[in-house]
């Protein structure tokens, strides 16, 4: 299998799906001529032409509404919103329109739209370009929310998102674009709504998503040296949440630490913790713990940002507080 960067894997998925289906169009800010500020859409204008790959004005609210309208009449728009921090500008279209249509209109029209964006801190981009807002959209019935951690998943899940008749918010991570991994050649689809056990272990389940999967794997290696066998579960999709895989892992290890880069209060970790408490409390040998960003806007200075964001070290410290 070839090794690709995460950004290249996304590009490959877009290229392959667009070749197969003329209903797929791309639009967003700086995505056509320039190829996207993270180069995800590089070369697609040349391959598919200016009718299907479009640079837009800076009008996120309208772009998201347009994606909804285009999807209603059969297109499969893939809209890039440059930073997850700009998601609030699109929320009417996502929450009041796209999410409502499949159910409230009783399936009369497709709503095959993908809103691609990227979030996360660690790059010194400041409070308005570093947030993780995945839980905000994962709250909403009718939306699907996908947060791939690896190049392979990025490709397989983006292809699946484009083919899905429901609206998908696809949240990439700016620090993952240059990570590399093996990615299947040719058309490749992964099911939305399935978590994956990415490291097997017996003493604790570390349940994470997006870049925090990589931090959790680092923590698990260090914990192994400490004599703790950690299992790592990559949620991959936040909505619909894969209850089965989460519960199976916790029933095996009897301990759970949930890790995400979004804020702790009301984060996806709270939902996962509630699920475990409701369905598997009797299996637990230790209280459930959550590791997330501290409840503060993401500060600019490296010294402050590192304190606010979760890390492998904090995951490891949290696991060490469990009754092991």
């Amino acid at each position, binding site marked *: 299998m070839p090794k690709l960067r995460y950004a290249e894997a996304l590009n490959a998925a877009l290229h392959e799906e667009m070749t197969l289906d003329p209903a797929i169009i791309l639009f967003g800010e700086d995505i056509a001529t320039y190829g996207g500020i993270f180069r995800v859409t590089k070369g697609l204008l040349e391959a598919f032409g200016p009718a299907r790959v479009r640079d837009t004005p800076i009008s996120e609210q309208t772009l998201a*509404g*347009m994606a909804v*309208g285009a999807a209603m009449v059969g297109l499969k728009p893939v809209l890039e919103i440059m930073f997850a921090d700009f998601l609030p500008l699109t929320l009417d279209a996502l929450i009041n329109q796209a999410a409502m249509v*499949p159910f409230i*209109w009783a399936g009369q029209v497709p709503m095959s739209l993908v809103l691609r964006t990227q979030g996360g801190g660690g790059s010194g981009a400041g409070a308005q370009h570093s947030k993780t807002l995945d839980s905000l959209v994962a709250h909403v019935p009718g939306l699907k929310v996908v947060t791939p951690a690896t190049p392979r998943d990025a490709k397989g899940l983006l292809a699946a998102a484009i083919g899905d008749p*429901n609206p998908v918010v696809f949240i990439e991570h700016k620090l993952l674009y240059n990570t590399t991994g093996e990615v299947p050649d040719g058309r490749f689809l992964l099911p939305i709504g399935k978590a994956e056990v990415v490291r097997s272990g017996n003493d604790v389940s570390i349940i994470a998503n997006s870049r925090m999967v990589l931090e959790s794997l680092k923590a698990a290696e260090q914990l192994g040296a400490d004599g703790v066998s950690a299992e790592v579960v990559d949620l991959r999709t936040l909505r619909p949440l894969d209850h089965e895989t989460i519960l199976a892992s916790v029933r095996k290890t009897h301990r759970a630490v949930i890790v995400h880069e979004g804020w702790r209060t009301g984060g996806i970790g709270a939902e996962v913790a509630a699920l475990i408490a409701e369905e598997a409390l009797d299996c637990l040998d230790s209280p459930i713990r959550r590791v997330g960003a501290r409840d503060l806007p993401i500060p600019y200075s490296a010294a402050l940002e590192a304190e606010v964001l979760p890390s492998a070290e904090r995951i490891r410290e949290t696991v060490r507080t469990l009754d092991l």
Partner: protein
Amino acid sequence: MLNNPSSDEIVEMFRKMVVVRAIEERLGELHKQGKTRGPLHRCDGQEAVGVGATAALRPNDVITSTHRGHAHYIGKGCEPYRVIAEIFGRASGYCRGRAGHMLVASAEHGLLGGNAIVGAGIPIAVGQALAFQLDRSERIALTFFGDGAAQTGVCHEAMNVAALWKLPVIFVCEHNEYGLTVPAAQQSSVRDLAIRAQGYAMPGMQVDGNDVVAVYTAVATAAAPARRGEGPSFIEARTYRMVGFSTSDLGGYQPDSEIEAWRPKDPIARLRAVLAAEARPGRTEALEAAARKLVDESFERALADPLPDPAELAAGEYIKVG
């Protein structure tokens, strides 16, 4: 004139306006009897905008509507019976009772769809128009919105994109003088909204929104260049909201003198007089009686229909994949 309605089309617009008025009046009666659920936004007095604009479209064109959409729904060809069934949450409604009166969609009629977020339908129509530009089907998306929605940021963004990309969309601003309780003069920096079209390099027209023929002609005039790929137009249709914002509105802010000044401009009365002057009063009366009878029968039938079965909620929030 190429863009004027035929006499058959005028008669059909009259019939549809009467249907809409009869629906609104019956809803008002049922509300007083406590037999309706949730707020209802009647369009009494504004029927000519929705009916005239949709009459100038083709069946496969699409519209986005508003929270005050009954004239748009009936104008675009929806059956009164199934609209009423939706208003009363019946399983036989266009959306199986899930939508209620503000959010009705009927894909087969190109009603996509009602919208209760002010201004939200505008970019949706622009996206629909993008799809029609790409599939070269010569279809049009027409978006209805009010003078209140014309003040939203999304309206301005959407007008810019539509004109920039020469999309086949028609912006129909149904100017009824009020955004809930606040008059237009307290919401807009300009009185004539049509002049804003110039700022987006598109034609802007102001039309008497209580003259169904004038509305038809304006939309037909805008439709021709849109179908040729020459881009959008903006139509400001001046009308007046006769019965308040909604059934939950306590009123008191629309001056009686203002309401009385608009009463003689009633679009149905005006067209009735025109048709009578053309020496077909008997036909007009018969037509009106038939339209009201259709609405009465539609109410009886819809109200007798069952509510949806809650068991269907088990199908969940998504459209099934594959």
